């Protein structure tokens, strides 16, 4: 045996004793001998060809019981983990680029992290993920489900029966997308009258309300909203996008107030509804004014862009992620890890949030400089946290009903979708004593 081969074999053995499975795969080869390298770095900067899939690799690695460190602000939020054959194989299969590092390489990185606006956050356990979605909804009409499917992150689907039946306690992370918690079918009732998908939604929701003993769908949804709030209060992580953000809050504020159009609950909304809303019951917003016209697919003045309210509709711009201190504010820093700081905006039924409607204490994660609205917000509620991202689909800025699904193989480095996946991994770090 040559000396070099002998040394490599010995080093592999030592590493193998210390780290289960290390060096076993050898599926990714750099231009150097990496048999001494016991660490795997998944860079998340522009050099990573499969940024979205990288989150899936990390999630599955956590699920398999391995530990990972999320290197905030180091090469756009890279991941560092001990080498194991399974993760290497997984990364190679999905095309995630990885680099193998020696202990001294890792020491060097830690030195850089210690001296800059960076931090290494240990990720310990893959969260149990649930997505709230109607059984008839297409998986491809929800950006989060598209992201979860593309990154291959295991998740369950829940709807009203499961939420009311108390199943939320089995999950750590819940996602809401374009559900309308005011029970008005996204106010598409008049525009899309006669469409099969709308008829199906009406039938399913009405049936569900009946089954659970609610007078109408609006009341059913308000109760579901309250259960979701309780989930957060008890320590859950809530991530909502599009209409779910605004309507969840309106449903919480509208307890005991009729805010739904006559087509939805048989009676016109309370003319004095705005004055009766209880914003002390909400998590993120305050003092919103409702759009009570059934013909305008807009819910309130919380949304800055008013995509379907022509006179008030605003053009899309771009939003900017805030640069938080990774050591002092690791939570918001985790949520904004991205290889791009400026991201093109995208419409949704709720696209953005007017700044003056945010409650004090809400952390703004991204805004459009100079505009009165913000895009991405976060806050604590009880023992849990919530994060809201406006808009429907980061890679389909003008999304319309019936548009084809977004194919993420065409956007493997999508910065907007990265924000979604930051949220999925964020609860994995929660067990550590965080500073905010």
């Amino acid at each position, binding site marked *: 045996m040559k000396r070099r081969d002998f040394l490599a074999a010995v080093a592999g053995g030592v590493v193998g004793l210390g780290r289960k499975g290390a060096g076993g795969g050898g*599926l*990714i080869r750099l231009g150097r001998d990496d048999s001494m390298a016991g660490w795997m770095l998944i860079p998340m900067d522009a050099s990573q060809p499969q940024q979205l899939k990288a989150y899936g690799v990390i999630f599955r690695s956590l699920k398999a019981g391995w530990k990972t460190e999320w290197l905030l602000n180091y090469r756009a939020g890279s991941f560092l983990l001990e080498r194991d054959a399974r993760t290497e*194989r997984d990364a*190679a*299969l*999905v*095309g995630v680029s990885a680099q193998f590092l020696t202990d001294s390489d890792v020491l060097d990185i830690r030195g850089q992290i210690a001296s800059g606006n960076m931090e290494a956050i240990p990720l310990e356990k893959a969260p149990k993920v649930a997505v709230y979605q109607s059984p008839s909804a297409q998986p*491809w009409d929800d950006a989060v489900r598209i992201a979860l*499917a*593309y990154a*291959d992150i295991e998740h369950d689907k829940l709807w009203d029966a499961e939420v009311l039946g108390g199943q939320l306690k089995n999950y750590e992370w819940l996602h809401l997308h374009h559900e309308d918690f005011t029970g008005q079918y996204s106010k598409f009732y008049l525009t899309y009258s006669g469409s099969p998908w709308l008829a199906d939604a009406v039938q399913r929701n009405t049936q569900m309300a009946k089954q659970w003993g609610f007078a109408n769908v609006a009341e059913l949804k308000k109760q579901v909203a309250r259960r979701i709030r309780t989930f957060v209060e008890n320590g859950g992580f809530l991530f909502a996008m599009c209409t779910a953000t605004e309507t969840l809050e309106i449903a919480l504020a509208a307890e005991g107030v009729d805010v739904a159009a006559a087509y939805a609950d048989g009676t016109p909304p309370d003319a004095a509804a705005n004055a009766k809303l209880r914003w002390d019951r909400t998590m993120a917003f305050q003092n919103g004014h409702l759009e009570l016209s059934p013909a305008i697919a807009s819910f309130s003045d919380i949304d800055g862009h008013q995509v379907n309210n*022509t006179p008030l*509709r605003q*053009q899309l711009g771009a939003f900017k992620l805030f640069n938080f201190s990774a050591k002092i504010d690791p939570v918001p820093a985790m949520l904004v890890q991205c290889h791009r700081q400026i991201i093109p905006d995208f419409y949704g039924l709720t696209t953005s949030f007017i700044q003056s409607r945010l409650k004090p204490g809400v952390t703004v994660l991204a805004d459009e400089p100079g505009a009165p609205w913000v895009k991405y917000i976060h806050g604590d509620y009880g023992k849990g946290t919530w994060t809201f991202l406006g808009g429907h689909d980061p890679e389909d800025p*003008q999304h*319309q009903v*019936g*548009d*084809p*699904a977004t*194919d*993420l*193989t065409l956007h493997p480095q999508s910065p907007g979708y990265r924000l979604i996946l930051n949220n999925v991994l964020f609860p994995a770090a929660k067990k550590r004593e965080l500073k905010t």
Partner: protein
Amino acid sequence: MINGRVLRILALLVAAGGGGGSGAAAQARPGAAAELVTDALDLERDERYPEAAEGFRAALRVEPSNLSALLGLERVLKSSRQLPTIFPQLQRALSRDSRNPVLRAIELRVWTGIGNDDSVTASAERWIQTAPESPDPYHEWAGGLLAAGRLDDAQRVLGVATAKLGQPPMLPDLAQLAAGRGQWVEAARLWHTAVAGAEQLADLANENLTAVPEATRPQVLTLLSRTLPGAAARRMAADLELGWGHAPQAWALLEPAIPADRLQAEQVLQRFADRARLSRSRDSYRVRGVVLERLAGVLTGVASERARVDAARAYADAGDAVAAERMLTRLAADSARAPTGANSAMVLLIAMMADNGRVEEAEAQLREWSGRMNGEDAAQLRQRISWAWIVKGDFLTAKTVIADDSSIGSMAIRGWMALFTGDLKIATKNFRAAGPGAGTREQAVQRTQIAGLIQRIEPDSVPDFGRALLLLAQGDTTAALTQFATAAESLPPRGGRADVLFYAGQVAEAKGDHARAQPFLAGVLLADPQGAVAPVAEFHLAQSLFATGNAKESQDRLEHLILTYPQSALVPQARRMLDRVRGRTPG
């Protein structure tokens, strides 16, 4: 380098008064401006924009309000990103004819191109002031905003226009606005109203609505074919279906909506037939044939015969020999009386006869018509007939038919004959001699592929392989595949076996016979797992397994491919397919 056209412009300028100054126009000889414009247009066509601009400017010095020159100047300056420099000429023209809508439109477009909103508005308002009853300023203004994607601004302009002039003149703009917003059903409704008032808008409407996303098409079609009344709406629906590549459905919509008036019917059918030609699918060729046959019935005399020949050609393109023959029966009997163009239809017909195995009939027709055909057509038909004899297994007659032919086309045929007898060396020699120019592009590609394959086969003579290819040419895929398996068995694993197995696998796949394709493709990996064809075969195998509902095995194959052949160019495609197999991406 100064060429003749530039010199001519200079000469004309001198003749017109020294190339500048206010006296130029007064001293210009008649027709000088027109000549300058013609030369400038030539320069524009050659993409020599700076010189073309000088030419147009020269014409404008002679005739300041020459619209062709000014429009030309606008085009070339836009192409060379010098649009703002048009103002001296434009202002001069406007000072002479401030009410001219073409000049006003240029002014508005120039400001829009520069992107100065205030000036765009001011210019539009000036135009509106000079022509308060005209919709043109609003068309141009809103059009610029729509093109820039500024839909809300366009809507504001159209709102003002509609309030002043009513909705009808603004319907095309409103329809385009609705389309821009993705409100396709509304766009279709507006276009229908617009076309009902002005039939000439049909093409514009069709162009705009062809972009309707697939998911929304059923709603648009329901609106046009059921909800809205009248034949015009059905014809719009037919137009759209045709544009979306659904020729049979389009014809089903159009047929009951053909106008009763003969002249109108003729126009409608001719337009539809012309558009059907653009799709280049078998379906659309067949529909074109049907439409032209109907048109032949509407027309009379020579025009009718010509339509019949066109119909025959369309049927032939669609592969429908029976219908093509039906159209040509009268002509075939008497070639001397056939109208112009009939011989080209007969070329197709004879070729189809040969392809369908009616070789003797094809030869008889060729004898009747060859006198009216050009030499190249006749030679190609002889080659086609020779090929038909080969397929029948009569190599001797095949050779006789092309005995005097030394063209590259005949070399290709000789190559195939050698190949079918298993003589790979002679086949390669003849294919080389034929080169890539013989026959159609498709035939050239096929020949190149097979030449590449036989180069990787070590023995010079493999009769089993030749028999397999002949069986394939005769359409007996089942027997051919069995013969390929025998041939592969006789070859060294890395000396052609893997390649022949892969070829056979592809043949089976192309026939949709996955059950037979899979063992061939798996055989490649056994024969030569390190060979260049192995990852390709494994990818095809994974596709075939997935197509037959075996997702798990397909996934295993893809994973094996990605991990075993990480340097293969197929890896990104394999990853993409792996996502699909695992249900991670739509489709």
